[in-house]
């Protein structure tokens, strides 16, 4: 049974966005995240919205997949909206006991929801849906490579990242399976007090940790059997070269970022 989570799963494709260099996408996602967090006025927000819609269309990724990727964060978004709506001062629209709903509250609540949504959609499209975990690991390795001069094991770090990402779906499936097995033995994860639930988690986490250690062991042996040697020089298979579209993309993102930063 496949896990339904979107975490760490890319959707193969050949769109312009798929073909962008992962390093550029990584930097772009970071800048866009910054832009989304800093955006204040409605006009800039509109530009960001247009940008996001354009990205969705160009990436040719089905909207349902994008929506599904927001789902886990829906709670955070709703919470942010609620805090804004209930705490902002301003023209009162509705008074319920000590709670006031103000026009300003609604606007800033809506803004923060959009902001978070843009952030999540952009990062998911650039870093998860259109980029394989390995490309991200490669990009990180390349971006971090200056640290090599500080004796930072960049390559090992990148290998670690890529393996961690490779095992995310496996571990998700595994945790689902363990949860089902323990439920079959009468474990109940949905009811009872907080202590009962924490106790319940033990019955999932312990087997999950044990099997992860076993997997790590197995994997280390499998890597060794395939001639992997830590510290030895390996062929670099993915040598990414920046091309025109990458440069255009990063200029666009920087322009967007500056626009938001200085309010045009």
């Amino acid at each position, binding site marked *: 049974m496949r896990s339904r989570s979107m975490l760490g799963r890319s959707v193969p494709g050949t769109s312009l966005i798929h073909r962008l260099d992962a390093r550029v996408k990584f930097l772009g996602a970071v800048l866009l995240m910054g832009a989304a967090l800093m955006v204040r006025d409605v006009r800039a927000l509109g530009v960001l919205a247009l940008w996001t819609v354009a990205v969705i269309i160009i990436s040719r990724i089905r909207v349902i997949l994008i929506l599904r990727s927001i789902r886990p964060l829906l709670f955070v978004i709703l919470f942010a909206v609620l805090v804004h709506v209930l705490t902002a001062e301003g023209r009162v629209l509705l008074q319920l006991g000590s709670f006031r709903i103000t026009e300003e509250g609604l606007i800033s609540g809506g803004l923060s929801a959009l902001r978070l949504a843009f952030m999540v959609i952009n990062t998911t499209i650039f870093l998860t849906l259109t980029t394989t975990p390995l490309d991200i690991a490669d990009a990180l390795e390349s971006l971090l490579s200056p640290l090599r001069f500080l004796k930072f094991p960049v390559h090992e770090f990148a290998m670690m990242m890529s393996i961690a990402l490779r095992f995310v779906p496996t571990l998700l499936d595994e945790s689902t399976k363990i949860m089902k097995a323990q439920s079959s033995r009468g474990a109940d994860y949905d009811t009872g007090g907080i202590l009962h639930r924490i106790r319940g988690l033990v019955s999932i986490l312990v087997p999950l940790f044990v*099997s992860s250690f076993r997997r790590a062991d197995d994997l280390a042996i499998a890597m060794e059997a395939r001639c992997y040697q830590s510290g030895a020089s390996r062929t670099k298979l993915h040598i990414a070269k920046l091309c025109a579209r990458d440069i255009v993309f990063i200029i666009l993102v920087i322009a967007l970022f500056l626009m938001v930063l200085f309010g045009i």
Partner: protein
Amino acid sequence: MIQFKDVSFTYGAYEGQLPVPAVDHVSFHIRKGSHVALLGRNGSGKSTIARLMNGLLLPDEGEVFVSGMNTADAHDIVEIRRRCGMVFQNPDNQLIGATVGDDAAFGPCNLGLPVGEVKSRVEESLKRAGLYEMRDRAPSDLSGGQKQKLAIASILAMKPDCIILDEATSMLDPVARREVMALILELKNKHGISIVQITHHMEEAVLADYIYVISDGRVALHGTPADVFDQADRVRAEGLAVPTHIEIAHRIAKAAGAAYHPDEIFTFEGAVAFTRHALRFIEDDQGAMGRAAALSSAGEKSEDSCHVSLSGQGAGCLREEKTDCSAGPAAHCEPVIEVENLSYTYDTHTGEPVAALTDVSLTVGRGEILGIVGHTGSGKSTLIQHMNGIIPSKKNTVRVLGRDLSERRTVRDIRRHVGLLFQYPEDQLFEETVALDIAFAPKQLERNPEEVEKAVLRAARRLGVESVLQRSPFELSGGQRRRVAIAGVLAAEPDIIILDEPAAGLDPAGQDELFADLLTLTSEGATLLIVSHDMETMARLCHRMIVMKDGRVAGDGSPNEITASAEFLESVSLSMPPSKSFLNCFTDRYPALDTSCFTAADAAVKLLLAAGGAAKADEPPAAPPGEVSNGKDKTHARAEFPLNRRTRQP
């Protein structure tokens, strides 16, 4: 190619733990281009030997040479590992790349080859394994068989001389297993790559050129497959099985007093031809017939080591006791599970809905042993997860013990009556001691401590793990952990027990012992549902079988009905149990032959009886009519005997 010179290896020798000897003064030589099978029970030292072959482990004593290079020489280790690629058991734990192509490139990259060379090797090896079209997919999107083929392709990209398969097919279904074997044989035959294969599957072992049987870290038996399997008693004593056709031919030869050469009966066709010949001899010769009757009844009891067929015969006698239950869904047994028009779809991560079950209806009667068979992805697992409400069902689709499972409260209640054991259940153990882990389920039922303790003891005793109750489950062997996990489900004392591939990965003797223990449950009124790919075992054990195909019920009937047509079995990607396909070769000669048996011992008896019957028909006065029916009675008495003996064993 690979040479062991008096090699010994002990685990824990350097870590200050209790030393566990694993390999004990082993010497052998594997020639280039040969196909060698290493057989033996779980924990006999096979995997350790495999890991000594490519320097993953280094011998404590003795030396291992690969193409003349000593594995202890750190200088040559990369070259040794390049030449001896290794495929491991668990498909999920040996793929390193985030895509199929990257995984195949991992080895060549480690060798520091130029990029162009890496790419062309990746392309070539993926094409050879039939995975080139999937080069950009994530390994987690592949099926188990495809993952193992990818692991093989990734080794091929390093241009190896030898591939070592450490139980590489044990987690696969029969179809995938055959595909992987076909790929391996092609590599051996077309490209001259040596194969060293560790396996519990005898149908794979017979494909080898040479067999080593490992026992307690030593070579206990070796020779060509024909010679090894000819020593049937020794093979069984090592916890292995003898291929069914060889065993039938052995029994017939013994009864007919006919001599044979091991090579002659090694192939299925050879065994059939020999049996045909021997049976004709029995028909013709009255003296031989008398001997055959005597042997067919007495031969059983004298054979101590015949545990391979024990559980099967046990089921055979159970089956006869409860014929009313095996008649199908319309049986007069009280229904305990009723599934009506159940459909289930789920979404994949790409957003495509997939129909896992479509309009499934079935009934399970109390006390039944029901087998659910079908290829991977046929919906078996999804179906059984509905039966204790792990997957919620719609109204009036699933009823257990007369109660509808669409209500949450019912589900909580029903789980104490339905024990569901998932595949590889040892992965769910988590407590500090075996006793605590087994107690998990009864504790959830809010029973008082004495009752819990009693339930734990009963379950532990039934699965033979009471001696390890105070140990940590994580320090036990795989087979014992499996038993502890099963005890953990049985401790809640459910009325209905559902087992998903309970014997997967165990050696043949371990499988038989486990099934014999599980069968004792039904004598206490429990209902047993077993999900498996193994047609022979299922046909032997079950009263009734349900065949799933593409989420639908494709067949529902007694094992004999299900296995009646070879075309049907092929259409649902299942194989004919070997004893039955053996007997099917004789229906032209003996039209009255009863082919409804699923063990070698039964098949031999049926053939002898048929030959006796034919002789009688040819020459009416020769054989007294009483003798045949007498012989038949003995068959039944014998069928009951082994089960009783098994259950009496502690």
